[in-house]
C-alpha cells in the first residue's frame, strides 16, 4: 500500500488555472472566441447564411468576391459564404461525433485494461497496438473509400483510427491510480467495480481526456476535410469544406478565392481548437 501523496483536487485547480489563463492571454481568448463562434454557426446553421447555399445562378459563375457575395461564387454561381456556413455544421457535427465515439470506446478499453491488469490487459494492449500500426489517414481512406461515401461510414472509419489514444492514456492513469490507498479502501469496503471506476478512477482521467478530446476534435476536422478533398468523404452537393476545396482546385487560375476561403476557414477552426487544447494541457501541467 503506497503512501502516495495527493497534491489536492486536480479538477478544481485545473479549471481555475485555465480560466486565469483565459483572462490574461489574448491569443487564447481569441482562440476561445473563434471556437465559440464556430460552435454557434454550426448550431445555427442555414439560418445564418445570407443566401441559399443550393441556389445556382450560372450568370454569377466564378464571380469574384463583392459586397453582396463577400466570398464570391463557385462554378455554379452558388454563394461561397453561405456554403461555408452550412458546411460548418457538417464538419463540426461529424467531428464531435467522431470524438465522442472514439473517446467513449477508448476510455472504456483503457479502464478495463488498466483496472483488470494481467492477461486482459496484455490482450487489449496488443489489439490497441495492432490498430495503431495502421496509419490514420491510410486506414481511414481505405475504409471510407471501400465502404462508400456516407456519414456513417466516415464516422466509423475515423473513430476506428482514433480510439487508441484515449485507451492508452486512460490505461496509464488507471494503472497509477488503482494502487492508491483510497481505491483499495473502496475495494475492501465492498464498493462495486463499476462504482469504483466511475467515482474514483474516471475523475482522475477527466482533465487529460478533455485535453485529448479538444486536440482530437481539431484532428477530426482536418481528417474529415482531407477525405472530402480526396473525394472519399461527404459527397457533393453537400457543402463540406474539403469538398469545396476539391471543387475550387479545378479553377485555381481563374477563381483562386474558391481555394482560399474554405481552406482559411478550416485552418482557423483547427487552429483555435489546437490553441485551446494546448492551453488546457499547460493548465494541467501547471497544476501538478
Amino acid at each position, binding site marked *: *500500500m503506497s503512501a502516495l501523496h495527493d497534491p489536492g483536487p486536480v479538477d478544481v485547480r485545473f479549471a481555475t488555472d485555465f480560466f486565469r489563463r483565459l483572462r490574461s492571454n489574448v491569443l487564447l481568448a481569441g482562440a476561445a472566441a473563434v471556437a465559440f463562434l464556430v460552435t454557434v454557426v454550426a448550431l445555427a446553421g442555414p439560418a445564418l447564411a445570407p443566401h441559399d447555399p443550393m441556389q445556382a445562378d450560372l450568370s454569377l459563375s466564378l464571380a469574384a468576391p463583392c459586397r453582396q457575395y463577400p466570398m464570391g461564387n463557385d462554378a455554379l454561381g452558388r454563394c461561397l459564404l453561405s456554403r461555408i456556413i452550412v458546411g460548418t455544421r457538417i464538419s463540426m457535427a461529424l467531428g464531435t461525433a467522431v470524438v465522442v465515439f472514439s473517446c467513449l470506446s477508448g476510455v472504456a478499453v483503457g479502464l478495463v485494461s488498466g483496472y483488470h491488469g494481467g492477461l486482459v490487459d496484455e490482450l487489449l494492449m496488443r489489439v490497441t497496438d495492432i490498430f495503431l500500426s495502421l496509419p490514420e489517414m491510410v486506414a481511414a481512406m481505405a475504409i471510407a473509400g471501400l465502404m462508400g461515401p456516407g456519414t456513417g461510414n466516415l464516422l466509423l472509419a475515423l473513430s476506428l483510427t482514433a480510439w487508441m489514444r484515449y485507451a492508452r492514456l486512460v490505461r496509464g492513469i488507471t494503472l497509477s491510480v488503482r494502487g492508491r490507498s483510497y481505491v483499495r*479502501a*473502496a475495494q475492501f469496503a465492498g464498493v462495486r467495480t463499476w462504482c469504483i471506476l466511475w467515482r474514483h478512477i474516471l475523475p482522475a482521467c477527466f482533465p487529460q481526456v478533455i485535453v485529448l478530446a479538444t486536440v482530437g476534435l481539431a484532428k477530426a476536422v482536418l481528417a474529415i476535410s482531407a477525405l472530402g478533398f480526396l473525394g472519399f468523404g461527404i459527397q457533393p452537393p453537400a457543402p463540406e469544406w474539403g469538398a469545396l476545396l476539391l471543387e475550387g482546385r479545378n479553377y485555381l487560375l481563374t477563381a483562386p478565392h474558391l481555394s482560399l476561403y474554405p481552406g482559411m476557414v478550416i485552418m482557423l477552426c483547427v487552429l483555435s481548437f489546437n490553441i485551446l487544447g494546448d492551453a488546457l494541457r499547460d493548465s494541467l501541467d501547471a497544476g501538478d
Partner: protein
Amino acid sequence: MSVVSEPGVGVPVLSLRELSVLLPVRPGDIFRSRSVPVLNGVSLDVHAGEIFCLVGESGAGKTTLLDVILGFCVVQKGTIRFRGRQVEQGRGPGRLQLNRNTQVVFQDPVASLSPFRPLGRSIVEPLQARGADRAEMRKTVRQLCRRMQIPRSLLRRRPSQVSAGQAQKICIARALSTAPDLLLLDEPLSALDNPACQETTMLLCRLQREYGLTCLLVSHDLRLVRAMATTVAVLYLGRIVEQGPADSFFERPAHPYSRALLSSALVPGLWPGQRIVLEGEMPSPLNAPAGCPFHPRCPERYSRCSRMPPPLRHVRPNHFVRCHRAGQGSSVQTATGHIAELECCEQLRSSQRPC
C-alpha cells in the same frame, strides 16, 4: 506446536495458521518466473476485545500480512479463519463475511481518502456500499462526529484541505461507521507529526475502551504499541520470532531481536539498559540465512544458530519465542541489569501510560 491461545477462551475473531506467501521477484510478472518467500509459516490468533500488535522492521512482511488478510494477496499455503469460518482465496462466502465485518485504517490518511469527494461522503462510503439509506448514514455521521469530536465544517472539505491528523480522524471514523468486528490498522501514526500522534493515540485508546474494539495493529512505533497493545508479536523476515502478552513482552523480552528493537526505540522508560546495536541490515528474503534467520546479526548467537532453525519455546504463560537461547536463563544481561529493568519498567509503566 504452534502459537495458539488456550482452548476455551472462545473462538478467535481472526485466526491465521501456517501462512506462507511467495511473491514474484518482478512485480507484474504474471508467470512468476522467480519468487521470494515473504511470509513463512505465520500463525496467530486475535480474540475478541484484544489489541494484537505486530512489530517489525520494514521488509519483515507486515504489509504483506495485511494484504493477505484484506484479500489483495494470494496465499500459497496456510489458512485464514474469521470467526471460525474458513476464508477462501477468491470471492467465497467466508471472504465476503470477513470483508463485511472488518475495516481498515491505512498508513497515509490523505491518500486513503478520495481527492474528488468531500470528507463527509468518504466517511459513509462503506455504509453506502452495504446499502444503507440516507437517514441511517446521516445519523451515523452525526454520532461519529460527536463521539470523536469532529467539527461539522470539516466534513465539507476535501482531503488536501485538511491536516494529516484530521484526515486520519476521518479515516478512523470511516472505519468505525459500520461497527466492525475487527479493525486493522496499518501504521496509523507514521504519516502524522508528533502532536497529531499523541492525539490520535489517545483517541484510539479511548475508542477501544468505549467500543470494545478488536484490533490488529501493525506498527513500528513502540510508543503506540505500548499504549494500546494487549498482545505483541514480533515479525522478522516473514516469521514470528516472539509473541506474548504486552506486559510480559515489555517487561522481559525473550528474543534478542525484540530486545534490540526496544533498546533502539528511544522511548523513555522502555529500555533502561544500554542500547543494543545490531550489525548489518535485515537480509533480503531472497538470501535468507540458514538456521535461525536472525543469527548473522544476533549478539547472542552460537554454533547451533546457524545450523538449525530454532523451535518454538514457551517461556512464560502465553509467551512464546523462537530462539535457541530461550529458556536457558537470562545469560545476556547481568542479573542486576535485569532486575533493575524490571523495577524501572514497573515504575515507569504505571506513570507513563497515557490511557
